[in-house]
C-alpha cells in the first residue's frame, strides 16, 4: 500500500484470559499480540480448543481479558464498562456467527432493519437500505422469508448483510462457514473478502478450512492459547509481531 503507516483498526497486546474452573483458574490465552488492519481479510486458524473463540469474544468487546490491552482505533478500550461498550460495538464492530444468530421471528429484511434501527435508520429509509444490503449479498428475492425457511448459506448471507448495516471498521466472524458446504463457504468468504477490499473494512475470520488461506491477506495460526505464527500469503511477507 502507500507509504503512510496506517493505524490498525484493532491492536491486541499481551492479552491473557483465564476461566474460573471451580476454585482454580484455567488460562486459555497466554499473551496474544496481533494487529488487524483496514482493507484486509485476516484468517485465524488453529485446532479446536486453542482459544480462537475466546480471543474473538475479547476482540468483540464482549469479554474482558484477564490481562493485556485491547485498542480500538488507537483508543484503549480494555477498561471500559457495560455503560460505554454497547455504543462502541454498535458503531465500530460487526459480528457474524457460525450459527447465524438471526432473530427467528423476523424475516430477512427485518433482521437487517433491526441492525439499521440500532444505527438510527428507521422506517422507509431503513427498508430501502436493508433491501440494498440484501441485494449486495444476492438475497434480495428472499427478503420476506424467515430464517427457518432459508438455507444455511442464505442465513449466513443475511447475517453478513446485517453486519454491514453498521459502518463498523471491524467485522468479526467465528467459523462463519462451519455450517456450510464448501461451495457455499467459498461464496461467503468471497463476500467477506470483497468487504475488506472494496469497503475498506478490517475483516477477521476464524476458520478451519485450509482451502481459504489463498484468499486471505493475513493468516494467524493459534496453538494452545498462543499465536504460533502469522503469515501473509499474498506475498506481503512475514510480519514480525512484538514478543509477548
Amino acid at each position: 500500500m502507500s507509504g503512510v503507516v496506517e493505524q490498525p483498526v484493532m491492536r491486541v497486546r499481551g492479552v491473557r484470559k483465564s476461566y474460573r474452573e471451580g476454585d482454580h483458574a484455567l488460562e486459555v490465552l497466554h499473551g496474544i499480540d496481533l494487529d488487524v488492519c483496514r482493507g484486509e481479510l485476516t484468517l485465524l486458524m488453529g485446532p479446536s480448543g486453542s482459544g480462537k473463540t475466546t480471543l474473538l469474544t475479547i476482540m468483540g468487546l464482549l469479554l474482558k481479558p484477564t490481562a493485556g490491552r485491547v485498542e480500538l482505533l488507537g483508543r484503549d478500550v480494555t477498561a471500559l464498562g457495560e455503560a460505554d461498550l454497547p455504543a462502541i460495538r454498535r458503531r465500530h464492530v460487526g459480528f457474524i456467527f457460525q450459527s447465524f444468530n438471526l432473530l427467528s421471528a423476523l424475516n430477512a429484511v427485518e433482521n437487517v432493519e433491526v441492525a439499521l434501527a440500532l444505527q438510527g435508520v428507521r422506517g422507509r429509509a431503513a427498508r430501502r437500505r436493508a433491501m440494498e444490503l440484501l441485494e449486495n449479498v444476492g438475497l434480495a428475492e428472499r427478503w420476506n422469508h424467515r430464517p427457518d425457511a432459508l438455507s444455511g448459506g442464505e442465513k449466513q448471507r443475511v447475517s453478513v448483510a446485517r453486519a454491514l448495516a453498521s459502518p463498523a471498521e471491524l467485522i468479526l466472524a467465528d467459523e462463519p462457514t462451519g455450517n456450510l458446504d464448501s461451495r457455499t463457504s467459498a461464496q461467503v468468504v468471497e463476500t467477506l473478502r470483497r468487504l475488506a477490499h472494496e469497503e475498506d473494512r478490517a475483516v477477521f475470520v476464524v476458520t478451519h478450512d485450509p482451502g481459504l488461506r489463498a484468499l486471505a491477506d493475513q493468516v494467524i495460526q493459534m496453538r494452545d492459547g498462543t499465536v504460533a505464527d502469522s503469515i501473509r500469503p499474498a506475498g506481503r511477507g512475514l510480519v514480525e509481531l512484538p514478543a509477548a
Partner: protein
Amino acid sequence: MPLIAWRNLFHDKLKLSLALVGIVFSVVLVTLQVGLFIGAMHNCSCIIDRAGADVWIMKKGTRNLDMADQIPERVVFQAIPTPGVAWAEPLIVHFAAWRSDDGRQENVEVVGLRRDTRLNLPWQMASGDRDRILRTGGVIIDERERLRFGSGGRLLALGETPEISGHATRVAGFSTGVGTFTTAPYVFTEFKRALDFACMPGGSTKFVVVGAAAGVAPEELARRLRDRLPEMDVLTTAEFSAISRDYWLFKTGMGLGVILASALGFLVGVVIVGQTMYSATIERLQEYGTLKALGMGNLGLSRIIVQQALIAGILGYGIGSLIAWHMGCKLPTFNVPVEVPLWWTATMFLVTVGMCILASITSVVRVFRLEPAIVFRG
C-alpha cells in the same frame, strides 16, 4: 422496536395463547371479584343511599341498617321542631320469616313505610303502584327473588298469599334493582303492617328519617339534632352508609375475602404470565445476546420484553374485560350481586398493565444479567 416484540409474541402462538389464558383468567377473576365487592357494597347500603333522607336517627350503637334496636316513635315529634327539618318520619327495617304458599320458609327484611312516606323506597317498580299498595295493603318484593320465592317450581306471582311472621299477606308488587347483602330480600309494606311483621309494639320504630329544608346542609342538621337528641345516634346519610358498608364488608369477613380473592387472581395472573414470558425469554436468550452484541443496551432489551408483556396484556385485557363485562350484565339476573361498572372495567386496564409489567420483571432481570459473550457459543 415494537416490531421485535410483536413478531416474537406472534411467532410462538402456543406461548402467546398460554399467556393470554393467564391474563384473561386473571382479568375476569379480578374484575368479577371486585365487581362482587362493588355490588355487595352497594347492596349493603342501597336502601340508605337511595331512600332520599338526609339524616338518620337511631338507637345508640347501631352499626347497620339491618340490625337496629327499636326506639320510640315520638322521636319523630322531637325531631320535627328542630330548625332546618323539612320532614321526619319513622322507618322500620326488621328481619322476619316468610312462609310461601307451599309452606317453605325464607328470611326477609321487612321495610315499613308510612302510607304518605316521602322516602323513595323502593326506587323502581317492575309492576304495581307503590303508593296504592301502601294504602291498600300487601307487600312488594324484588323481581329478582321471584324464582327463589316461587312455590311449586313456578315464579312468584302477584296475588300469592304468603305469611310473614304468621300474618297473612299478599304479593302486590315487584320492585326492581333492590339488592340485599344479607341474602334476606327487602320486602316493603305499610308501617302498621310492618309493626306486626316485626312483632314490635305500637308507638315504636327502628329509625326516624329526616329531610333537610332547602339550603340546610345535612351535617349541620345532624349536629342540631344531636344536641336535641343526645340519647340517640344521629348520622347523615353519607355517614350511615359508610358505617353500614364498613360493618358488612369488614366487620364480617366478607370484604376481606373478596379482596383476598382478587389479590390472588392478580397474583395468579402475574405468575402465569411471568412464567410464560420467562420461558419465552430463556428460549431467545441467544437472540437477546446477539442484540446486545450488536450494541443494543439493557434499556432497549428491557423495552422489547416489557412491550411483549404489554401487547399480550392489552389483548388479554380486551378479551377478559369483554367476558367480565358480559358476565357482569348476566350474573345479576341470577341474583349474583355482581356489579361491573364502566369505570372499574377501565381501571382494570391499568391493573392489567401493572400485572404485565410485574410479570416481565424476572425476564428483564435475566436479560440484564445476560453475558453477551454467549453469542459465540452455539
